[in-house]
């Protein structure tokens, strides 16, 4: 039985966003929306449609700027400077990289969004595009909002239009600032005039960013900034073209999911990490390479993911709190190791930074299509927990939680992130360290062992959790194995022992339920329209809730944070409280919806899958349209 059936002869044509209402077992045609997601949500804007820039009277409460060019054009520097400026102005920030990477290799781009309210996802359209080449204009123009403008590098960009301003960014950098590379700071200077930035704050941002390099570098960058302002005035532009509101966000940090995960692991007492480079998981390893040596911890880059997970298993067995992180292809290679850790009862945290698969798939693209694999991966059966945080501080909290759960329940715990959540940065309040606790479960000690008459590593207990000794402990000598084993850890194929050992391990899925992260519920308690999501769909869903509410559709959002075992009780309560629930996920088959349906078949008729599998994350309007049944 499929979650939704595809009508015979009507195969999916690669439409990105699909809602398929499901009632009972009848086959229903999938309602396909638009032709491509970008077109559905952000109708392509030809230059004529854009028209001359309109100057909004009110400052923007929500602005998104995209910068596109060749690698080395400093797109990230501009995006970073913008982020710092808006941060200083009390706005909430969300930055993304490689938004346009559909275009040819070597192209680099980044976007910065700033909002007076918290944001956790990209804006549906761009208000400003900074283009260092023609490609950036071609693709970026489609994303441009009505009233938006393009700051184009004179000489590099040929396209013309009433909303395209050609300024000599690289020419000025090369001839007057001393190096073409300064075009990034020149652009920031120009933008600061075009958007009416506070010049002192903007200049301060440049000072802070380049101050550490000191002396000449700082001088040169400040000069580039001033030149950038000058060329706007020389061009005789009427400025500001529009302005941005001031916010009152305070004491925020700007952090990516990968960074939050690395931090959470260290704070949880994680001291060993083994991995193999893979997009988008690599930054976890790179951040830990910086952090862990300060705490007697170790990070090893292994020769492949087979080595990575087994090295991690070795370290975890030896008693270090251990993590490995990977993505798609690496996860496939780790599969045998997962079952090994499960049977041997070795505590391990495995992070899956999902990207579009299978095979090499789309390494830099966004997807949430590993869920069923992570839940069921391995030959044979073993217990595992699968957690999925929704935003940066949630990533931090659940990483701490996962590290504790792994040791407490002596099994592998998965943290599922997704591409945008891993890589993009967002404003968040600094993490609350006072909530952190380190719970090592039934890790035993020399003292405890000395008092025991007999020590058996896999002793049968009430809850199936045995005391865990680690090498070096006197009186804790033991055998650890992935073979089925008796209480001593010796290989056994005795059927009765097998039954008891299977139950000992598998019962954890029931027993641990109260211990697993509870869902977060957002929005109107009385709403009859439900939304279900996990991972980074949190951002666009929360944003869509705001819009829907304004349009008179109150909603309630079930943010699942434990995906396996499926939070049956919480989901039942939730589904009983709504008439319909849209399950929003970035995959083709509606994987979480399938799990819910499998666990709660009687409530399945209320589920409406909203899926997107074009390599891009949802943006709020996608969800608004889906809920309102709009094409």
């Amino acid at each position, binding site marked *: 039985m499929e979650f939704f059936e595809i009508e015979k002869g009507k195969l999916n044509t690669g439409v990105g966003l699909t809602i398929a209402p499901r009632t009972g077992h009848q086959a229903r045609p999938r309602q396909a929306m638009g032709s491509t997601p970008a077109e559905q949500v952000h109708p392509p804007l030809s230059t004529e449609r854009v028209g001359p820039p309109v100057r909004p009277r009110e400052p923007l409460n929500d602005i998104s700027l995209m910068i596109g060019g060749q690698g080395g054009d400093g797109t990230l520097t501009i995006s970073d400077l913008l982020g710092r400026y808006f941060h200083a102005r009390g706005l909430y920030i969300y930055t993304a990289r490689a938004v346009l990477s559909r275009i040819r290799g070597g192209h680099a781009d980044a976007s910065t969004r700033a909002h007076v309210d918290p944001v956790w996802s990209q804006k549906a359209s761009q208000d400003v595009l900074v283009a260092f080449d023609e490609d950036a204009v071609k693709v970026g123009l489609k994303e441009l909002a009505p009233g938006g403008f393009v700051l184009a590098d004179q000489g590099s960009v040929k396209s013309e239009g009433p909303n395209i301003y050609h300024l000599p960014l690289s020419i000025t950098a090369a001839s007057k600032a001393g190096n073409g590379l300064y075009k990034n700071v020149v652009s920031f200077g120009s933008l600061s005039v075009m958007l009416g930035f506070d010049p002192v704050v903007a200049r301060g941002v440049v000072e802070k960013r380049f101050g550490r390099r000191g002396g000449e570098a700082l001088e040169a960058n400040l000069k580039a900034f001033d030149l950038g302002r000058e060329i706007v005035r020389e061009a005789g532009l009427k400025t500001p073209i529009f302005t941005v509101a001031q916010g009152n966000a305070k004491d925020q940090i700007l952090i990516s999911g990968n960074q939050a995960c690395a931090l959470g692991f260290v704070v949880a007492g994680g001291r060993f990490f083994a991995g193999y480079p893979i997009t988008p998981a690599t930054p976890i390893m790179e951040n830990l390479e910086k952090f862990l040596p300060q705490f007697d911890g170790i990070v090893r880059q292994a020769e492949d993911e087979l080595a990575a997970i087994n090295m991690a298993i070795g370290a975890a067995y*030896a008693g270090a709190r251990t993590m490995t992180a990977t993505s798609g292809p690496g996860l496939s290679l780790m599969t045998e190791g997962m079952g090994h850790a499960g049977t041997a009862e070795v505590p391990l945290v495995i992070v899956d930074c999902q990207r579009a698969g299978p095979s090499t798939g789309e390494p830099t693209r966004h997807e949430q299509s590993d869920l069923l694999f992570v839940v069921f991966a391995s030959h044979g059966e073993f217990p595992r927990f699968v957690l999925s945080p929704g935003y940066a501080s949630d990533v931090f909290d659940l990483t701490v939680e996962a590290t504790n759960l792994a040791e407490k329940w002596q099994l592998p715990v998965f943290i599922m992130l997704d591409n945008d959540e891993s890589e993009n940065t967002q404003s968040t309040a600094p993490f609350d360290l006072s909530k952190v606790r380190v719970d090592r479960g039934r890790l035993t000690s020399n003292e405890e062992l000395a008092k025991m008459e007999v020590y058996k590593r896999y002793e049968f207990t009430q809850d199936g959790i045995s005391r865990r000794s680690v090498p070096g402990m006197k009186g804790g000598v033991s055998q650890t194995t992935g073979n089925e084993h008796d209480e001593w850890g010796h290989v056994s194929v005795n059927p009765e022992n097998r039954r008891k050992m299977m139950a000992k391990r598998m019962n954890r899925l029931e027993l641990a339920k109260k211990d697993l992260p509870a869902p977060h519920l957002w929005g109107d308690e009385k709403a009859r329209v439900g939304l279900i999501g996990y991972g980074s769909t949190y951002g666009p869903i929360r944003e869509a809730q705001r819009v829907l509410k304004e349009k008179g559709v109150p909603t309630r959002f079930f943010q699942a944070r434990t995906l396996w075992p499926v939070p049956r009780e919480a989901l039942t309560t939730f589904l009983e409280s709504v008439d319909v629930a849209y399950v929003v996920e970035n995959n083709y088959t509606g994987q979480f919806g399938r799990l819910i349906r499998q666990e709660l078949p009687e409530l399945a008729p209320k589920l409406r899958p909203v899926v997107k599998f074009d390599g891009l994350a949802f943006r709020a309007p996608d969800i608004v349209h889906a809920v309102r049944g709009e094409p």
Partner: protein
Amino acid sequence: MTEVVKPIPSTWCPGCGDFGVMAALKNSLKELKVPTEETVIVGGIGCSGGIHNFLDGYGFHSLHGRLLPTAVGVKLANPKLTVVAVGGDGDGYAIGMGHFIHTLKKNVDITYIVMNNETYGLTKGQPSPTAKVGFHGNIESPFDSVLTALSIPSAGYIARGFSGAPREAAQYVTEALRYNRERRGFAFVEILSPCVTYNDTYQLWRQQVENVEKLPGYDRSQRAKAFASVLEVKERGKIPVGQIFRVADDKGVPALDKTLLPMIERSPTTADISLEHNLTKYQKLVSSFS
């Protein structure tokens, strides 16, 4: 004293070469007085890989071919432990080949013993990577682990023994463990251990083994000469055994665990991970993102 798991009687066929290896390892651990609780034996999958069940000490049964990364993880997490990885030729040179080369390269202070019987004993006699041409229809030339190990620049201790000569084999294992305990790096010992059931080579190997150390002027600290001697012995139809290479005391690549954890008392497993102990440093890390 707490009662703990006891070694079980071996499940090997009577006369199996693996018995000689087990005797050697047992003697070496005893000779060096390695405390049982600080001994970790990581077994592979194969007849050979079950060895940890038959010995005292912490035992970890890893996946087929993955014993080396597992052993490396154990040692890096707690450098105080004496870690011995033991597996078969199929485990180490077929499915685990990548890890063999990379562990030689990593140079972590563990000893790796391969029980080479030129076959897959546990799966009933298929040709392994060291099988001779003609064995069970094998048409691929055999692989030589010693030559491979010699070609990895960081490999510092390489020996090959024969389980038919357990005293020598034990000596190589003892030397290997000493080398680890001095934090010199990875030690590799292959022991020819015939599979009496599927590839009984006792008589043949007894005639073929030739100790390179007895060659006139042999200097086991000279890598190039060792390489040439091994080739030369093989060309004569013999099997080179002995302490084939041991890097000179003043040479060699530093052991990875020593580089990462210069003080053996401070490691991932001994670190104080309490929040109180680390709070100030944690706060600094978090605020570095503002």
